[in-house]
């Protein structure tokens, strides 16, 4: 399978430079990769980003703390809930707020549903990149149910704005938990169906095994987080290392891969969806009664100081570094974007591979340009 180790280019070959993107069907938005090719073999690849740069970090500086939350929705727009969670977690830590248990559990449910939704998008588009069209539609049908649940909870489907500093803005609507439970209970069967389409498929295996291999040491060196890191066999998950909300009260496994290739990252994400289902089931079973909002002042005014708070987003460690000067607006609000840092490793992963592998690797890194460019 790995017959594609980089070999010396033919002595009289001519290099060809191709600009993949920013308008290209498989670059997940507006990523542009300048690829130097020898025939179909990639000699070098250079990602060029910034086409979606909106200056989110600058905008943060003029917003109140609650006003920044809608802006975080638009970073990793496939995982708005985890973005919210990271931001409000940072501000809460800074203010010393303890979130009521019910709110914390609701947050975990929302975040895990969001992780499932994000992985569903990843699976659909990744399969589409590798040429299998159909999983896209099967997966998106399930995602639709998740979006319906979000719509019912907070009124929006994509840009949720569903958390506030101090807790949750709304309580769960009536019957929501039942519908959510019904969804997560049937999801493992759906996941098994998707796996029947792909996991054992020889073409899928040929296309993913041994493609984009990165060793554990290298993955740490390149700062990978999330499934790309775990696919290389590093058992590391913010939910376990620095448990936030009430993740220390639920039981789940961290799936890890062995070879650090595209196939392992695929397996890791599939298993992560099952673990998220487990977490949601436990959260719904344990969901305590009580208020959903802590007693926080109406005007959020954290003390002078700086804090870094991160959550395990679907794409990797999503951190917010908040510097406060004691006013109602953040002095500096830095996002540690998981996709931005994961994308950096792309040239390493694709060097010596074929063009088709680069598409597979871009898919397996699961990038969202909204977060990369911010």
């Amino acid at each position, binding site marked *: 399978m790995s*017959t*594609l180790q980089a070999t010396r280019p033919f002595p009289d070959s001519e290099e060809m430079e*191709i600009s993949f993107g920013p308008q*290209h069907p498989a670059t997940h938005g507006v990523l542009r990769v300048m690829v130097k090719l020898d025939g179909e073999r990639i000699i070098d690849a250079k990602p060029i980003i910034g086409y979606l740069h909106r200056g989110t970090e600058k905008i943060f500086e003029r917003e109140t703390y609650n006003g920044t939350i809608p802006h975080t929705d638009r970073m990793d727009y496939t995982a708005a809930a985890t973005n919210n969670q990271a931001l409000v977690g940072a501000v809460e830590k800074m203010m010393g707020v303890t979130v009521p248990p019910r709110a914390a559990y609701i947050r975990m449910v929302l975040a895990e549903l969001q992780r499932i939704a994000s992985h569903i998008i990843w699976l659909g588009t990744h399969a589409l*990149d*590798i040429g299998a069209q*159909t999983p896209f539609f099967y997966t998106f049908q399930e995602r639709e149910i998740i979006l319906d649940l979000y719509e019912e909870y907070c009124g929006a489907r994509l840009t949720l704005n569903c958390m506030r500093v101090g807790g949750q803005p709304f309580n769960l609507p009536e019957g929501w938990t039942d519908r959510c439970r019904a969804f997560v209970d049937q999801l493992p069967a759906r996941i098994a169906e998707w796996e029947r389409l792909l996991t054992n498929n020889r073409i899928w295996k*040929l296309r993913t095994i041994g493609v984009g291999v990165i060793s554990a040491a290298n993955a740490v060196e390149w700062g990978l987080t999330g499934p790309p890191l775990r696919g290389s066999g590093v058992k590391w998950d913010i939910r376990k290392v620095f448990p936030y909300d009430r993740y220390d009260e639920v039981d789940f496994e961290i799936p890890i891969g062995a070879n650090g290739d595209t196939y392992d990252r695929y397996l890791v994400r599939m298993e992560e969806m099952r673990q998220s289902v487990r977490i949601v089931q436990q959260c719904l079973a344990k969901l305590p009664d009580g208020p959903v909002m802590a007693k926080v002042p109406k005007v959020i005014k954290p003390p002078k100081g700086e804090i870094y708070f991160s959550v395990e987003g679907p794409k990797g460690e999503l951190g917010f570094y908040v510097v406060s000067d004691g006013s109602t607006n953040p002095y500096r609000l830095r996002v540690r974007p998981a996709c931005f840092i994961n994308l950096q490793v792309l040239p390493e992963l694709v060097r010596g591979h074929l063009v088709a592998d680069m598409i597979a690797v871009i898919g397996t890194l699961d990038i969202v340009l909204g977060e990369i460019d911010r």
Partner: protein
Amino acid sequence: MGNPWIAFLLVPLVKIIVILLVVILMAAYLSYFERKILAYMQIRIGPNRVGPRGWLQPIADALKLFVKEDIVPSRAEKLVYMIAPALITAPALVVFSVIPFGADTTFFGLLKQPMPPYLTDINIGILFVLGVSSVGVYGVILGGWSSNNKFSLMGGMRSAAQLVSYEVPMGFSVVAVLLMAGSLSMVKIVEAQKQAGVWFVFPGIVAFFIYIVCGVAETNRNPFDLPEAESELVAGFHTEYSGMKWAFYFLAEYANMVLISSVATVLFLGGWLRPFPNAAALAFLDVIPPFIWFAAKVGFFLFCYIWFRGTFPRYRFDQLMALGWKVLLPVSLANLLVVGLGVLLMGGPK
């Protein structure tokens, strides 16, 4: 058929027109059925707005493509760019002249004496099919090259390598049938299956599967659709084509699908014959006209094409080559040997 001129000119002319129309319409409606079946597999509905249940969608598409602006990239090699779509479409249509769609028929008593419903039966029919259809690759290569687009060029190069590689095992799998039939004529091959009393798919099961795989690869269909892999090469060799020129590529692709399915039907599924053509117990199946049998078998293949497209991921280029040269070629050669030995032991071709 009194006047020989009628037999010589008019009848073939009518047949040509009918076959061309049928093939083009089939190609158009194949696109409709592909979209529909694919949509159904993907829990969608598919085209359903133009006409009842979307039946007029292919017509609407064709009209749209006719009136669309025809864009020629300013730095394209203009002449080649113009010729390339014709180069791929013409062979795809010409080949249908030798496909036997059915047994001699009077068209439900319309004619006084039975007439073959195909254009001609030449004694090297299958050779003609293989030869002419492989000309089509020039259309792909030239189209990719002349567009002056790197994606197109890569698509064209991929296509050239792919088509040439898969002709070889395909040829060998066809030879296995020829050994059994003892003739190159398409009609004779069908008749040999009638004499043998069994479709050649049973003795030639390995050749059949090799032919199917190669056929899918020859028509650039999923999972071998590398020349136009949209996630890698945008649209491959026809990235720069638009309007009617693009429609020609499209037509050729679907005509080729019909062609590969027709040839598979003739070679392996007994053409217009019913299952077990000599078994008296199944004689009630004879009420179904031969060309319906033919159409049904072709339809089955076409459905499989669409089914594959809906299910499989895409091979990578080197894996495609490895599959062709390292798996299919040795297997087809070994199969040839086995079939040859079998034919020899059974006393030679009928």
